[in-house]
């Protein structure tokens, strides 16, 4: 049984059919890359999985839980965290307060402290700046905060929406190496990226999304060899 199964998902914005009946699955421990051009529907899919948008039809099953019927605020405690597009940290709160909000649904004080230490190990810069107001961090630091905040819920699966967007190459490399570390620690990752090259480097499998439908799927390593993909998404 896959950890996460999406079946025939259809999502509308008013009259506009943004997701046109897609299906895919994520196995425990995998890194799955969901790549596609701007406007393909990547963000819409992640928002639908974590309940910020309701689908018109289709099924989303996460470890036996029907996510279509689960209100957005109850999903994180099932073990699924979402690093949203554009980071969406809480700008007027401090780094530390943002991280604590990531653990909002957790009751185990000792466990939260332990996770906080892990997050600081992944992102030493967050510890250095823990009392800084989050809105004053640089873009790369805000991305780290958004990822750290998601990790604070101690999720089994983590959804990331274009973590490399708008970052300098140095930060991009750092962010992707941390995603790899997170995966090594046993967390499942669903990674949405326009930076297909970087995403395919760390992914096990990948799906290509084109205007609301999945046009290709397969092993990430095969994607790297595929001429079509190389032309369209790797800029070669």
């Amino acid at each position, binding site marked *: 049984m896959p950890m996460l199964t999406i079946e025939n998902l259809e999502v509308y914005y008013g009259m506009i059919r943004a997701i046109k009946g897609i299906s895919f699955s994520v196995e425990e421990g995998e890194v799955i890359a969901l790549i596609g051009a701007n406007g393909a529907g990547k963000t819409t899919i992640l*928002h639908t999985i*974590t*309940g*910020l948008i309701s689908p018109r039809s289709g099924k989303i099953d996460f470890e036996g839980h029907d996510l279509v019927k689960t*209100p*957005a*605020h*109850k*999903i*994180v*405690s099932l073990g699924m*965290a*979402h690093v*949203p597009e554009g980071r*969406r*940290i*809480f*700008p*007027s*709160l401090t780094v530390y*307060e943002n991280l*604590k*909000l*990531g653990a*909002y*649904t957790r009751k185990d004080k000792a466990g939260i402290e332990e996770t906080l230490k892990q997050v600081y190990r992944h992102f030493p810069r967050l510890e250095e700046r823990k009392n800084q107001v989050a809105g004053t961090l640089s873009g790369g630091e805000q991305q780290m905060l958004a990822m750290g*905040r*998601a990790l604070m*819920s101690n999720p089994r699966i983590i959804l990331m929406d274009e973590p490399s967007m708008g970052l300098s190459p140095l930060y991009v490399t750092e962010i992707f190496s941390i995603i790899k570390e997170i995966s090594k620690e046993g967390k499942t990752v669903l990674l949405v990226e326009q930076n297909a090259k970087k995403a395919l480097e760390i992914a096990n499998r990948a799906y290509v999304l084109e205007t609301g439908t999945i046009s290709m799927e397969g092993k990430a390593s095969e994607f790297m060899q595929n001429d079509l993909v190389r032309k369209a998404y790797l800029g070669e």
Partner: protein
Amino acid sequence: MSFLTYLLSGVSLGSIYALIALGYTMVYGISRMLNFAHGDVIMIGAFTLWTAASPSFFPGNPGLPTAVSILISILVCTLLGVLIEKIAYKPLRNASSLAVLITAIGVSYFLQNIALLIFGSDAKAFNSVVSFPGLEIGGMKISAETIVTITVGVLIMVGLSLFIKFSKQGKAMLAVSEDKGAAQLMGINVNSTISLTFAIGSALAAVAGILYCSVFPQVSPYTGAMPGIKAFVAAVFGGIGSIPGAMVGGILLGIIENLSKAYISTEMVDAIVFAVLILVLLVKPTGIMGKKMTEKV
């Protein structure tokens, strides 16, 4: 009367404005709406206390003790605030701000008319909830209401600030104010957080109503209108959406109002208050402590 006396009663009046302004500003912060029915919740709070404490009005009511009446009044307003949000505003959460504004004005008239139906249009005498005498320090008289109002106001403002800064629900309120979607991803229940905000704002309105009617000892269906508008001015003055702004704005407004009443003109006082607001907004459009405005249209 000395300058200091005017100043003190200004701070006292300002504390009442601040309590009301907090309701406006917290609700604005979390749902980007101006709850114009907030002033009328004050009036309902005052009438509830009056009804509970009066031996005659409610058949069989011997006139409850003041403390009990205050509690009932706070409870009624808290429930009322939560109900108003659930029934009138929640269905409009994705509607245009104009639709929400018109609804708020509708709720305001609705509450006034309910009060008109039950209590009639004539003002009722309101017995101050403060029953001890004032102080006299070095020839300066300070009324008991002034002392109680300032004390209660300061205690509530400190308590509320601590609650927001240090409690989990307080943090959730800030998170929902900044980004509802991201807050939900943290596991925060946006609906119950908004309810809590209306509950707190309305409870503060009840306290403000009781204090206001203890200082100006009568209550009518229109009692809430003027302090409501003034507190709204105070909230804008301080920077709508900012909690410290509402406190500072409220107290400053009370002081300005009382000093202009004392030294300039009794008739002109409201005009002066609004003129000050316009001046402040001309110089700093976001209010004294306001951050950049994020207008929801």
